């Protein structure tokens, strides 16, 4: 029994942390406009992060989601704008559902970062279900796919479609689609609507309902892992402020209205961290337990991080509301996280159903 990270994983964590501090601090994050930061992307590829969960046979490192967890947590801490989550989901989807030919062609490109993936699963923003996928076709496609994640940074899109009630995933070249950027609250998580006009995909393969659920669960776990780092950053920023800001002759952190809220943040972060680590471990090592584990983690984090985002701003007073101060960047991320891959209502109710109700 060992519910902790290995020495290698801790080294990886340090590496990501260094990268975020040196190459991708918030001052750099703020300059991003939704496009792919090529230099940073290349560095991430050189460091092996994009190849982490790609099998060795396809040019990858052959590690697991629990290793990737460390990368996501630390890049979340610095609100990394790199589309690592979408890339990992593409690797997972192709590795799980695609033919050997498709794997041979695409997994190496994912590992090197030559292809940067945007993912479009559900057409309906509030319906996590096969029914929420509407785009039709598999050989030539005409139609639109909204809510494609990391769309403006991507070279390729992995899109879910349906044909006669069957689900497929297709890979299209971003250049073959017309992309309308969808400005969102969190600029580090750019979306777009991809319009296809008689486009022939570069690859297509069927996806079972189970595979769709698995992929969605991986997505939910991934954004929760990023949320751990992000929420800890808010807590650190706010704790420091509460220690130094003097009102009524005392640091505001001496007042329990402030102090207890920070303690509760700690409790919540510790808790969805434990739930998310377990879920990330379950992806590869106990997939039967993934649905329930993912739902518990995502449900807890969705509500808790949203509140942390808001209070992180609020506990700073007016300075928290300024564009210049970083707290607001995390609030924006928290609103994105809450809706990505199912909100707290959805996941709590799903957990109850999976638990026998």
């Amino acid at each position: 029994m060992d519910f902790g990270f290995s020495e290698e994983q801790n080294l990886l964590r340090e590496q990501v942390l260094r990268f975020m501090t040196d190459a991708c601090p918030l001052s750099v994050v703020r300059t991003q406009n939704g496009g792919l930061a090529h230099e940073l992307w290349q560095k991430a590829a050189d460091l092996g992060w994009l190849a982490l969960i790609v099998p060795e046979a396809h040019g990858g490192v052959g590690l697991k989601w629990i290793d990737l967890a460390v990368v996501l947590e630390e890049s979340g801490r610095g609100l990394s704008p790199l589309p690592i989550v979408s890339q990992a989901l593409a690797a997972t989807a192709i590795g799980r559902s695609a033919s050997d030919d498709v794997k041979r062609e695409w997994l190496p490109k994912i590992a090197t970062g030559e292809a940067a993936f945007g993912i479009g699963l559900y057409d309906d923003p509030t319906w996590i279900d096969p029914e929420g996928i509407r785009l039709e076709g598999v050989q030539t496609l005409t139609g639109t796919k909204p809510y494609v994640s990391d769309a403006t940074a991507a070279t390729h899109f992995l899109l879910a479609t349906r044909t006669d009630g069957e689900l497929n995933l297709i890979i299209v070249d971003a250049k073959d689609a017309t992309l309308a950027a969808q400005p969102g609250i969190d600029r580090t998580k750019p979306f777009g609507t991809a319009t296809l006009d008689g486009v022939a995909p570069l690859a297509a393969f069927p996806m079972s309902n189970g595979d769709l659920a698995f992929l969605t669960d991986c997505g939910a776990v991934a954004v929760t892992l990023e949320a751990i780092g992000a929420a800890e950053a808010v807590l650190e920023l706010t704790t420091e402020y509460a220690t130094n800001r003097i009102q009524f002759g005392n640091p505001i952190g001496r007042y329990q209205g402030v102090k207890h809220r920070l303690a509760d943040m700690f409790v919540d972060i510790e808790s969805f961290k434990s739930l998310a680590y377990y879920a990330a471990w379950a992806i590869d090592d106990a997939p039967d337990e993934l649905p329930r584990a993912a739902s518990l983690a995502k449900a807890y984090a969705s509500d808790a991080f949203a509140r942390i985002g808001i209070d992180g701003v609020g506990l700073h007073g007016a300075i928290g509301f300024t564009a210049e101060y970083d707290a607001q960047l995390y609030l924006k991320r928290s609103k994105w996280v809450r809706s990505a891959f199912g909100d707290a209502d959805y996941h709590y109710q799903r957990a109850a159903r999976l638990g026998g109700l």
Partner: protein
Amino acid sequence: MDFDFTPEEQAFRTEIREFLAENLPPRAERGRGFMGEWLKKVRDKRWVGFSWPEEYGGGSGSLTEQTILKEEMALAGAPPLGTSSMGLAWVGPGIMQYGTDEQKRRFIPDILDSKVNWCTGYSEPNHGSDLAAIQTKAERVGDHYVVNGQKIWTTGAPWADWIILLTRTDFDVERKHDGITCLLVPMNSPGIEVRPIENMAGDRNFAEVFFTDVQVPVENRLGEEGKGWSVTISALANERSSIGEVTQMFAKLESLKNLVRSTNRQGKPAADDPAVHRRIGEFEAKIAAMKYNGLRYLTKQLRGEPLSSETSVNKLHRASLEIEMDDFAVELTGLAGVQLPGSEEAVDGGRWARSSLGWPGVVIGGGTPNIQRNIIAERILGLPKGLIPSRSGRMSYAEP
């Protein structure tokens, strides 16, 4: 990262299961003599005081084995492994750490054999959360201490044989934590008077305990004079939340789901109500968080990494679940939910209504939620202490 147990640990789990299959009959079939036999059998297995060193009669169980034992006992709904609950929880560990050889010989076996009941005399009428400020006075006279003062909320005092008592031997100290002395006192000592207090559930488990010129031999002092605070702190640290607790809470959640399945609201099954699902989901997430927090902290301990006050995290979850799960059950079942045992309309025999009045033991008894939040904020996050030191920088206690 892995959640597997070693072959030895698995064998231990099997051993416990086999033991339970053989020796734990269903509740309804447990006759009068059952408890006595049970206590003897688990004692023979050295599962009582399982974490204690073998030289004191404990089981020298590793941290992981302790976890397994607690989990299996809770899964089986087994009765406690000993009836000297406070003796096992902190008096025994305190004596092993601070006691003299003579004290160890005298007290430890009786605790393990469930022969004596201990109660805990810490809180006073004016000093609860601020425990270090206690005023009960112990004055050294020859080879005795003479104790005067009052304790309150002393659980089990009406039937306890002994009390672990926190007293003040020095009222002129720089820090209130100094000058405290811990005494082990027979409850039948002349000058002790116990007045039970009825709680809101109608039970009379705790009491006021008055001390009037009670003579306590010096050899009954635990630890050094004036150093009683460290004894207390290390004893309270033993009271960490356990995997057994989590297992019981998962079991309670299952009962709660059964209740949902058998309940209609507004003519429709509660089991189809999304709002009900959401509440059940929230409970499960908190209990699961407690489980995986616990395993993460256990891993830290196994690796020899320092734990700060992280156990307060689970205490806060435990406190809110303790209130909310029963409360949810009572609300779910409407006016039937508020009926107590004895009422024909009572839900599940009044179990939920009754336990909805029991939370203070958990929520207040072991340090209130506000105090847990202070601990997290000050010890883990490093926020400034709440109390502003008095101007002289010196705290002085008037003699009572």
